[in-house]
């Protein structure tokens, strides 16, 4: 065979290998995004589970703050019901829940006996950590989405992404301004 046939074969082989590599890379990134999303879910569920316990504990000491308890419980239930919604809608509801929780813990500030309660202290640590885990998993999710979106939009991998119809990931933004400024719950 003539030499140029070999060159064509070699170029075609490299092209095919590159397509396989780029496709697999995109799939890998998309799986990381999916996994990161599941991780946020786990942490948000953990927060839903902690809230009834927390409300019960605080109730024992602060009986007159009914409105605050109701708000937290309502926000929790709404967020839980929306758990199958997209990242944008969820971000909003989770932000509201975070705010309601912040108010509950601010109320707890006024009760020194409550702050000395071992059960409350343990719950506090769990809640702080869960809030952190939520924001770290959100951070990792957003980083992964950024990586995926970059690959989908940048040349040359955008060609492959277009061929196999990869969709851009959606960032998990917290829409409530107050939540963005004070994502941590103050216990001091």
């Amino acid at each position, binding site marked *: 065979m003539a030499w140029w046939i070999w060159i064509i074969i070699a170029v075609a082989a490299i092209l095919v290998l590159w397509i396989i590599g780029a496709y697999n890379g995109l799939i890998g990134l998309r799986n*990381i995004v999916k996994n*990161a999303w599941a*991780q946020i879910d786990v*942490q948000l569920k953990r927060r839903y589970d902690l809230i009834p316990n927390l409300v019960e504990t605080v109730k024992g000491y602060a009986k007159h703050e009914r409105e605050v308890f109701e708000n937290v419980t309502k926000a929790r239930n709404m967020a839980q019901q929306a758990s199958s919604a997209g990242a944008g809608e969820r971000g909003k509801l989770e932000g509201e829940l975070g705010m309601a929780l912040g108010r509950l813990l601010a109320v707890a500030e006024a009760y020194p006996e409550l702050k000395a309660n071992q059960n409350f202290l*343990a719950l506090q*640590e*769990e809640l*702080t*950590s869960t809030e*952190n*885990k939520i924001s*770290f*998993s959100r*951070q*990792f999710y957003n*980083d*992964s989405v*950024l*990586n995926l979106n970059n690959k989908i939009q940048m040349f040359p991998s955008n060609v492959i992404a277009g061929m196999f119809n990869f969709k851009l990931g959606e960032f998990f933004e917290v829409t409530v301004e107050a939540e963005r400024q004070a*994502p*941590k*719950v*103050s*216990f*001091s």
Partner: protein
Amino acid sequence: MWEQIRSNQVRSVILLGLIAAILLAVGYFIGLIFFESAIGGLIIALVIWAIMSLVAYFQGDSILLGMAGARKVGPSDAPRLYNVVEEMKIASGLEKMPNVYVIDDPALNAFATGRDPTKASVAITTGLLQKLNRDELQGVIGHEISHIKNRDVLLMAITSVMLGTIVILAWYASRVLIFGGIAGGNRRSSSSSGGGGGAQVIILIVGLVLMILAPIMAQFIYYAISRKREYLADASSALYTRYPEGLASALEKIGASTHQLKKANQATAPMYIANPLNKEGRKLSDLTSTHPPISERIKILRAMAGGVSFTDYNSAYSQVHGRGGVLSKAAMGAVGAVGMRQASPSAPGEMALSEKAARSREVSDMMLKMDKYRIVDCPCGAKWKVPPGYTEDSIYCTRCGRTIKL
């Protein structure tokens, strides 16, 4: 395997190759001197290396944890520590929760171990656990988790096994050469023909020099790899926590401590967050240290104003050093601009103390202003009081290493 090591630097791999070359050279000369064929020596070197590698691979982490006297803790024993490790595991995207260990020791240190990210452990001394607040603990654990995530643990294990093999081989070979060499050399030269004598002597001399130099060279390379990985781990920790000040102030506390870790040795040193063998008051020279100087690491972290991405760390490094960067281009490409977060609210006791300090600082600032002092803010958060008689047009910030124009 290597392509899995995200942001692994080409330089680390080249240095690893260099150590391997030294190991082979040592084996080669041992073969030439003792068996009159290079193959025998190479085989001995490789067999010893293989055995040590297997032990390190399968038993390395339990040996290391055992030597350090670490005990495993669960979420109920040390809830804050366990939670922080889990937080950093999530932030780094590690697939599996590492085992958490505590070392009963007042010294301030922490290390990570484990052959791959799915079988990893993090250990921290009780002293450090007590001294740090949540943000600082996060910084330290972030540093350790990134050693796991970047596969530094594996890289350092491979390197230290090669170093160990070189040291063992060179030690025995040089002892045999020095004490038994004269007798052996006589016997061999008398048995071989007269013409080979000259070449034999040259090989003997080169071999002896190599046996003495090889362990030293290998050690230097080992230190160089270790230092590089420390910078990368600091940068990753800042990226994971989004808060470089946490690690910076933790390092400050670690640097100020005078306790020495009881159960640490040369082999385990690179895995700790700060060099456990560093004696108080002794300034380690750059070449013979497993870790960059703590003061420098703090300065770099504090010079990262505004962003926490690898790019920011790199420019902070060149700012502190006045020359090039420390991280590879590939490492920096991953994430673009990344913002910093606020400090977590502190525990009640600390709050009161810092409030008091802030008030007295305010008063003293006012008095100084009345004395015509100039108050200059550094981007790292430090406030500098410049006396009225100061004539230069800039000052040097000792906290982050910036030069501030007046």
